[in-house]
């Protein structure tokens, strides 16, 4: 008793010949089907090349177009040929010309001999698995598909739409429950004979002739009728990408393939010389390996699909550029933006760096240059501090900064004196944490000794800008985590907000705040605001500051809780 190999060959005939000889040498009879599209002379040469092997036969040729009936017809006739021609065959293994046996053939023969009644065919109902690409899962069984998807895509789509519109459903033959699965199976003589000699075969064939991709459903469905013992898995290692195309194996997959312990792999790149050399010349005999274990290969290919479909978050590059309206248009990692803190506290930046271990920059969007941490003029990724380069594309500046420093938390200062072009971008970024002490821009004005009229103008401008920024931060489209305190509220009880900010950043949360940053001396600030008001410019963003500082905080009852926008 042995296993018979059916090979469906389309291209790379010299590789097919090599593999057929390999099977033959190990005592497996082979029947080859060559696609009718292969020119006559090429085919004749191929047949002549294998003429020296009596156990390698050829079956009637059909035109095999992907997704059409031809492939099933070819398989049927090749199977009939192998069952008739070789009575010793107990299992028939369906392979393609791009398949490569990875283990000694003897191991496959032993494996099957130990399971003489088992049919290895992946077979699942459409309702239960989300395999199909392009949506036609159930529909492939209830509509007709007379047009080839590859050549007549337009007609294919239109005819399907028409049938949907007219609700022209077909009846599935009564005894059949549509199943699908990999077309690379290994069936027992018993099951295969039952399928091929079924009195109702004509009905089945007529039905499947107009099903889409029947090679993934014909045997998978009919095996369910006749087999008592289905192992719903394929013995062939075959991975598919996100468009349903098989992944291809190259020389550098040698170790992965070798360790997978699978019997057969597809699809092999025809010029992968090392793979063919290694696996077709390995010593016969048994290595004592057991069940196939494709886990590692699965992971490699699953990652590839993931990369193609989801990509690396926060990366903007030549082949990944999420649209403006895409939910994927985010930065690579969480970061924090502080507005008003370095104005209100003398040593906010070093304090924050100390307390969190994050990298704390100054005003990155300042008009003169990007104030990177520690006064650097360039930062990771050779990102320059030039304001011109930054303002040429502030979006890219931000995403580059966060991408380049991934693994390290970034914090930076922001304010109404900075480039505001980045506001919406940050507000819509779920990775951003924005903490604002509104009105704190007035502190440096109050502390600097300049012409009051000039101060008044600057104050008016800054207030207008900040007020616009705040309305952005309060809009319903904001995805960032936003906290806004008026300066008056913040000054009254700064500990709680600072603690909350540190907790957000997430380092050393367990420890209570041991050291607080030093607040600037605000005596006389109330008077300064009053002077502005007297000049007709009403500063309102900072809340109420009494003209004379009160003796003791009497307004203890008013809790300075931050309010969260989302």
């Amino acid at each position, binding site marked *: 008793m042995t296993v018979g190999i059916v090979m469906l060959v389309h291209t790379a005939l010299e590789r097919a010949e090599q593999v057929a000889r390999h099977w033959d040498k190990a005592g497996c009879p082979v029947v080859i089907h060559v696609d009718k599209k292969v020119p006559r002379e090429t085919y004749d040469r191929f047949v002549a090349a294998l003429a020296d092997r009596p156990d390698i036969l050829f079956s009637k040729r059909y035109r095999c177009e992907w997704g059409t009936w031809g492939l099933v017809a070819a398989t049927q006739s090749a199977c009939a040929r192998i069952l008739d021609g070789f009575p010793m065959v107990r299992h028939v293994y369906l392979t393609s010309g791009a398949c490569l046996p990875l283990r000694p053939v003897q191991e496959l023969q032993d494996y099957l001999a130990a399971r003489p009644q088992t049919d290895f065919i992946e077979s699942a109902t459409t309702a239960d698995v989300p395999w199909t690409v392009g949506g036609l899962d159930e529909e492939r069984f209830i509509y007709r598909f007379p047009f080839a998807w590859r050549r007549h895509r337009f007609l294919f789509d239109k005819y399907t739409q028409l049938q949907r519109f007219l609700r022209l459903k077909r009846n599935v033959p009564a005894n059949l429950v549509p199943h699908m699965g990999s077309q690379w199976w290994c069936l027992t003589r018993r099951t295969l004979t039952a399928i091929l000699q079924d009195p109702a075969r004509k009905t089945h064939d007529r039905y499947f002739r107009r099903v889409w991709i029947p090679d993934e459903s014909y045997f998978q469905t009919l095996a369910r009728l006749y087999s008592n013992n289905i192992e719903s898995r394929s013995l062939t290692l075959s991975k598919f*990408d*996100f*468009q349903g*195309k098989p*992944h*291809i194996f*190259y*020389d*550098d997959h040698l170790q992965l393939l070798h360790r997978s312990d699978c019997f057969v792999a597809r699809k092999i*790149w025809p*010029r992968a010389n090392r793979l063919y050399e290694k696996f077709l010349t390995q010593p016969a005999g048994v290595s004592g390996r057991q069940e196939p274990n494709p886990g590692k290969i699965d992971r*490699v*290919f699953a*990652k*590839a*699909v993931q*990369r*193609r*479909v*989801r*990509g*690396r*978050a926060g*990366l*903007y*590059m*030549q*082949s*990944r*550029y*999420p*649209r403006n309206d*895409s*939910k*994927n248009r985010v930065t690579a990692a969480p970061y924090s933006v502080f507005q008003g803190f370095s104005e209100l506290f003398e040593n906010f930046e070093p304090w924050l760096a100390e307390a969190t271990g994050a990298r704390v920059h100054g005003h990155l969007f300042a008009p003169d240059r990007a104030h990177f941490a520690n006064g650097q003029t*360039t*930062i*990771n*990724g*050779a*990102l*320059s501090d*030039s304001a*011109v*380069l930054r303002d*040429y*594309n502030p*979006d*890219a*500046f931000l995403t*580059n900064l966060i*991408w*380049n420093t991934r693994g390290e938390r970034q914090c930076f200062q922001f304010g109404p004196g900075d480039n505001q072009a980045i506001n919406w971008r940050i507000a819509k970024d779920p990775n951003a944490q924005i903490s604002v002490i509104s009105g704190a821009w007035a502190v440096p004005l109050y502390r600097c000794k300049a012409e009051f009229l000039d101060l008044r103008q600057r104050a008016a401008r800054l207030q207008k800008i900040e007020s616009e920024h705040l309305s952005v931060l309060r809009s319903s489209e904001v995805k960032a985590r936003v906290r806004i305190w008026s300066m008056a509220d913040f000054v009254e009880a700064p500990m709680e907000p600072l603690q909350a900010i540190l907790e957000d950043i997430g380092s050393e949360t367990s420890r209570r705040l041991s050291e607080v940053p030093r607040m600037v001396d605000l005596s006389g600030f109330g008077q300064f605001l009053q002077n502005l008001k007297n000049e007709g410019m009403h500063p309102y963003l900072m809340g109420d500051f009494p003209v004379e500082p009160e003796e003791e905080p009497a307004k203890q009852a008013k809790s300075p809780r931050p309010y969260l926008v989302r």
Partner: protein
Amino acid sequence: MGILGSYRMRWARKRLRYRARLKRYELSSIVDRTPDLKPDDILLFSTLRNEKVRLPYFLDYYRKMGVRHFLIVDNDSNDGSGEYLADQPDVSLWHTESSYKKSRYGVDWLNHLQSRFGHGHWCLTVDADEFFLYPFCDTRPLDALTDWLDSCSIRAFGAMLLDMYPKGRLEDEPYQAGMNPLEIACWFDSGNYSMERNPKYWNLWIQGGPRARVFFPHTPNRAPALNKIPLVKWDKRYAYVNSTHMLLPRGLNLVYDEWGGEKASGVLLHAKFLNTFGERAVEEAKRKQHFDGSFEYQTYAKAAGNSPQLWNSWSEKYINWRQLEILGLMSKGNWA
């Protein structure tokens, strides 16, 4: 844009092809080995001028990668490049004395050669100082990539230009014929590129890198474009619009994913900054045969006087393609 826009693009493409057909009279064939071409050969197209010192390594690099034939336009070299190329067994050579600028920086000449010889072939269009890298290029030949692209019905493959530079002054380590220029110029900027989508041609417009940082800090909008689509399964109806930055029909420019995924892409290592550069910048600034009135070269020429230092402490040293993949400059996409 709609139908009208598409129609305009169709005419723009026809105009480009017509230009290319007119410009064919400027080319005189020196050596024509194109009858040797086989249907699946990967072809390389290039225009060059006075690059003799770079040619031995350049040809070798691409031969090893799997390029079967080189189709080269020699724009009036006087350093022996033409003679050297004519002697190579896999080079077909054309010569012209006409203006590089008037042929739209060589694009017209190459468009003509591509439509005549490239139809149905995978065509790589690079300059003599550009070295193509693609995922797995250390273990898989170029036709593994093109076979895979064919099987995915992908017609164009993007590869961003990555400017390479040495540490120290350009003159410190002179380049000799046959040397790997990337042994001298082995540093690059890894994360200061900015990009935008071009609504007209649908390509990404990438700028940045050391050139924007050092030569164009005050005029970033004039910094050179770094987006390139050098590898295309050519069809005689295609045309490059502007260097290899973009093509028509526009669908070929969609080498990026807009929904968060990554398409496979490569990198063109740009080994321009060698000791030969300063001299060249001065000459090209005078000839004014380059883009934007050779503004780029004029800026370089001015800077080169002060011996420009491109290297800084955040420069990355080049190791291999996997490093560039991790840094996010190129991607394997779903090729595994």
